[in-house]
């Protein structure tokens, strides 16, 4: 459990400190410090064994199916990073307490900081690559929260978003790479991956996964050309910068290189990619750093350049290079953290970070100045300080590599140049700020900071010195342990020492120092030259590209989704055309084996009428009434067709539905324009004609292909069981109420819902009832024709009787609840038309909603009845009784079900038409449809 506790404790800390809002700042700080300190102690207890070469492992199963486990490991590399993360984390927490002004929430900062700490610990201790990515992304999220701590500042928002975008993108690449890696070796476990170097590097996917993983690493550790997010991340409070950009976030990328060094390194691709990226970053950033007027800006670029140095070291093809890299990781963490903190103090005490204003601080804060100067000289690589040692090693390695073949000498030269630049900007940091005349209109009167604010810096600077002077005592163990982890066992002999005698590296250092100082003294010309260069602003570029992409997307989307229903429909029809047409062409022949039945007179006439109706509907579609009439002709012919092809039920249904539909459309026309004006261009008409013709042909042919083929279906079962099983001779009706009664249940639901929906649509709809039609002819004054009134009244009882009869016979002869329902509805609608809805409303008050509900309930409960006989839903029952006077009668549960159907149909239809009718009943208002 011990390993798990290390990240867990810091997570706990995050939660605790987020709850300390009520306490004083000191209490909150102490509480927050508690957990990390415990974690640190825990790590220290483990340290000896790790230095002795032991690797601690722990794992808990999480998603075995995907090979995602919670697996932790603690080896030399991990423990090195754990120490940095916890150690510097603790110092930063302590420091932040004094840095943060009283109106900023301390607990919030602490909570985020320790969340971030947890994520970092997770990364360095992962033994499962997916888990590693998991924590990797967590750092992206938590760093987003940290950088945007002052979210009300635009630059904070921008910086945070940019950091998240770049590192998040890199994270995606990394995930890809890791998944590929896992797939290659067949496990996500690091133990397995680290030992299967040959397998991986022989694999076809090696290059892809390497590039993806490197993308992840380079974006995170701000390598050129992904560096630009880091300077903007400086919008964060200085403690955050001190943490993220010295020891942790940016080091995560470096850690990744170190972690996968045993598995991925050793190929030319690795060396070229890593070393050249590193070199480019090293030089470029060092150069830019020289011209930054903002202290944090300078430090930001120097950080980038040092990261470049470390990356370059990992890219050099000499064993010791990796060792040097690790050593520099430690040193950079210490001096950079202290420098950031010093900057924080200066900022805190003077209210500015602009080096053009900051001068002669020595007089105001000599103590801080001393600390800062020591740290800065460590950054420059001055002897007696840790920076010097690792730089010496770096120079030495650049001399041994054979990377660029005959041109390999370039690298040491460029390295020296970079060294010189480093000296130069360090010199500027020291000289510009602490000497160089008097301060220029500072916002605040500078003075030494509170005593304890300096403590963290003192500790770090002390470290710089100790490491610098007695390297062997301090860092040997951990350096060896870490190197063992990185180099996978074999570590070459190396000796970190202050004095190696006069040798080339020393000479290079000498050159660097002298060159750097020269550069600094001659900086005026340099600045002038730099000023003459066109400024390339990466941030601007980033913003613009994001903006342009967004604009492009919006344009594309607007062109695709232009809101034209016609276009959407055309797309769909074309798809149908293609899908239905393509197999047709694969068919050998359309016509099937059945012998064609001859055409008789009736059918011919019927067909002719139907075609006439259809075509004339299209021709006269603009004058809507005419087209409606023509449409009704078609409907009529369809029902005739049904009778002709022995489907009486269908015919009846079609007929009644037809009537109701036409009435509905007529009513609707009252509210819609009477005429459609011509608008679609001729080309458009041609296109539509083409599409519809093609569809017609395709569907027609499919239909033809079907009906000319012999056919086997399950229907015989229904015919066989209709009487015996369903108790009815009208097979269709039996299917509807029994075999497939469930469909009917759904169907009446649809009808009912539709009625509800329509009521909903028309409820208090602001409609202009035109006095006149579109031609300006006024509607007839006497609204209800007398003749119709009298007839309809006399018709009503008759119609009801008919529907009752139709209903009863339904089970055995064509008819049934649905048709009966529609007939009843029509009869009532007739009343509406004859007398207007007000007249009806006075005479019979029906709540259609209730009728619908009752209908469905009846149908439903008939179905449920069967449960009492522990049969499935809708198991029907019927029997024959001898009832006096009437004789032998059949009683079937299906009949009750049909009653439900009947009621629903009546209710829905009336509800639909009545709610539409109500509108017409309103008093005509002025206002004419255009």
């Amino acid at each position, binding site marked *: 459990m011990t390993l798990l506790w290390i990240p867990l404790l810091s997570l706990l800390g995050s939660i605790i400190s987020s709850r300390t809002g009520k306490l004083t700042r000191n209490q909150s700080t102490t509480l927050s410090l508690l957990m990390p300190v415990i974690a640190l102690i825990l790590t220290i207890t483990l340290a000896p064994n790790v230095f002795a070469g032991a690797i601690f492992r722990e794992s808990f199963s999480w998603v075995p199916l995907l090979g995602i486990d919670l697996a932790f490991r603690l080896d030399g590399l991990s423990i090195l990073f754990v120490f940095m993360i916890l150690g510097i984390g603790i110092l930063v927490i302590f420091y932040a307490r004094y840095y943060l002004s009283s109106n900023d929430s301390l607990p919030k900062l602490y909570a985020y900081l320790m969340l971030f700490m947890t994520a970092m610990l997770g990364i360095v201790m992962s033994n499962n690559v997916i888990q590693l990515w998991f924590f990797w992304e967590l750092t992206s999220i938590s760093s987003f929260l940290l950088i945007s701590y002052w979210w009300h500042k635009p630059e904070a928002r921008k910086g945070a978003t940019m950091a998240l975008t770049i590192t998040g993108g890199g994270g995606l690449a990394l995930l890809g790479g890791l998944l590929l890696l896992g797939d290659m070796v067949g496990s996500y476990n690091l133990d397995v991956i680290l030992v299967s170097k040959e397998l991986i590097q022989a694999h076809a996917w090696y290059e892809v996964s390497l590039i993806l993983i490197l993308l992840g690493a380079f974006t995170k550790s701000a390598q050129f050309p992904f560096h630009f997010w880091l300077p903007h991340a400086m919008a964060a409070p200085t403690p955050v910068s001190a943490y993220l950009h010295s020891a942790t976030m940016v080091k995560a990328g470096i850690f990744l290189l170190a972690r996968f060094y045993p598995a991925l390194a050793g190929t030319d691709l690795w060396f070229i990619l890593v070393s050249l990226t590193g070199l480019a970053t090293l030089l470029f950033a060092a150069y830019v750093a020289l011209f930054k007027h903002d202290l944090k800006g300078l430090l930001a670029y120097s950080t980038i350049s040092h990261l470049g140095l470390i990356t370059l070291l990992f890219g050099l093809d000499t064993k010791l290079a990796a060792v040097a890299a690790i050593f520099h990781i430690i040193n950079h963490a210490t001096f950079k953290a202290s420098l950031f903190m010093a900057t924080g103090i200066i900022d805190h005490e003077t209210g500015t970070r602009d080096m053009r204003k900051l001068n002669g601080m020595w007089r105001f804060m000599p103590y801080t100045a001393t600390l800062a100067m020591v740290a800065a000289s460590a950054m420059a690589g001055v002897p007696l300080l840790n920076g010097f040692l690792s730089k010496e090693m770096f120079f030495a390695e650049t001399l041994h590599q054979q990377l660029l073949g005959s041109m390999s000498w370039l690298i040491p030269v460029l390295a020296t140049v970079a060294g010189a630049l480093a000296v130069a900007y360090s010199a500027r940091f020291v000289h510009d700020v602490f000497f160089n005349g008097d301060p220029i209109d500072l916002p605040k009167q500078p003075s030494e900071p509170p005593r304890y604010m300096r403590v963290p810096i003192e500790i770090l600077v002390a470290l710089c010195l100790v490491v610098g002077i007695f390297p062997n005592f301090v860092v040997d163990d951990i350096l060896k342990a870490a190197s063992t982890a990185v180099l996978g066992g074999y570590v070459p002999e190396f000796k970190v020492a202050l004095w190696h005698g006069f040798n080339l590296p020393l000479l290079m250092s000498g050159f660097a120092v002298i060159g750097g100082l020269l550069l600094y003294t001659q900086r005026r010309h340099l600045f002038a030259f730099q000023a003459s260069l066109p400024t390339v602003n990466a941030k601007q570029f980033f913003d613009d590209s994001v903006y342009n992409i967004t604009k492009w997307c919006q344009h594309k989307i607007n062109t695709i989704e232009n809101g034209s229903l016609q276009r959407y*429909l055309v797309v769909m029809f074309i798809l149908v055309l293609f899908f239905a047409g393509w197999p047709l062409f694969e068919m050998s022949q359309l016509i099937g084996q059945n012998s064609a039945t001859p055409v008789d007179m009736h059918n011919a006439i019927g067909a002719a009428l*139907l075609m006439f109706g259809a075509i004339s509907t299209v021709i006269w579609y603009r004058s809507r009434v005419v087209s409606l009439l023509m449409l009704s002709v078609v409907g009529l012919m369809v029902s005739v067709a049904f009778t002709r092809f022995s489907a009486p039920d*269908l015919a009846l249904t079609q007929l009644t539905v037809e009537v109701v539909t036409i009435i509905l459309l007529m009513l609707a026309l009252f509210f819609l324009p009477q005429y459609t004006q011509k608008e679609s261009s001729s080309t458009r008409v041609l296109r539509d004609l083409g599409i519809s013709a093609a569809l017609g042909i395709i569907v027609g042919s499919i239909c033809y292909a079907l009906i000319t083929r012999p056919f086997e279906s*399950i229907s015989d079962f229904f015919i066989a069981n209709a009487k015996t099983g369903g108790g009815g001779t009208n097979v269709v009706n039996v299917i509807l109420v029994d075999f497939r009664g469930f469909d009917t249940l759904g169907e009446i639901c649809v009808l009912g819902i539709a009625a509800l929906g329509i009521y909903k649509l028309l409820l208090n709809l602001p409609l202009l009832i035109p006095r006149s039609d579109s031609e300006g002819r006024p509607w007839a004054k006497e609204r209800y024709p007398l003749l119709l009134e009298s007839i309809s009244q006399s018709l009503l009882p008759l119609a009801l009787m008919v529907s009752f009869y139709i209903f009863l016979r339904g089970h055995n002869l064509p008819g049934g609840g649905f048709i009966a329902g529609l007939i009843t509805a029509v009869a009532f609608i007739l009343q509406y038309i004859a007398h207007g809805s007000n007249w009806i409303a006075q005479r019979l008050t029906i709540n259609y909603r209730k009728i619908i509900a009752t209908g469905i309930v009846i149908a439903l409960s008939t179905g449920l009845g069967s449960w009492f006989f522990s049969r499935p839903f809708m198991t029907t029952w019927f029997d024959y009784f001898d009832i006096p006077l009437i004789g032998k009668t059949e009683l079937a549960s299906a009949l009750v079900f049909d009653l439900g159907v009947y009621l629903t149909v009546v209710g829905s239809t009336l509800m639909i038409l009545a709610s539409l009718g109500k509108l017409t009943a309103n008093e005509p208002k002025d206002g004419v449809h255009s």
Partner: protein
Amino acid sequence: MELLYAACVGLLVFCGVFLILRARTFPIVLGLTMFSYAVNLFLFASGRLSINKAAVLGYSADYADPLPQAFVLTAIVIGFAMTAFVVILAIRGRADLGTDHVDGEKTSQDKKVNV
């Protein structure tokens, strides 16, 4: 016979689709109705055509396939409900939008909102 039937179906589809592709609600409704006629006939025909066969037991030796008839009946009812709804929606649209035009020119809603 079969050919004639298929031709009718094809023609109905043709007319229906053409009307559906018009830019106003009412023709579209007509088109949908026509299209549903075609579809019903098509579905009906999937049980093959049978002239002078019985749909009710005890009237003839051989029967028309009852299952497609049941399907079509359900389809007709549902189609009726849908047509009713879309008609009313068209009216509502006319009232809300002041036009029965559904071809989306000048209708991209959120133009003014800046990014």
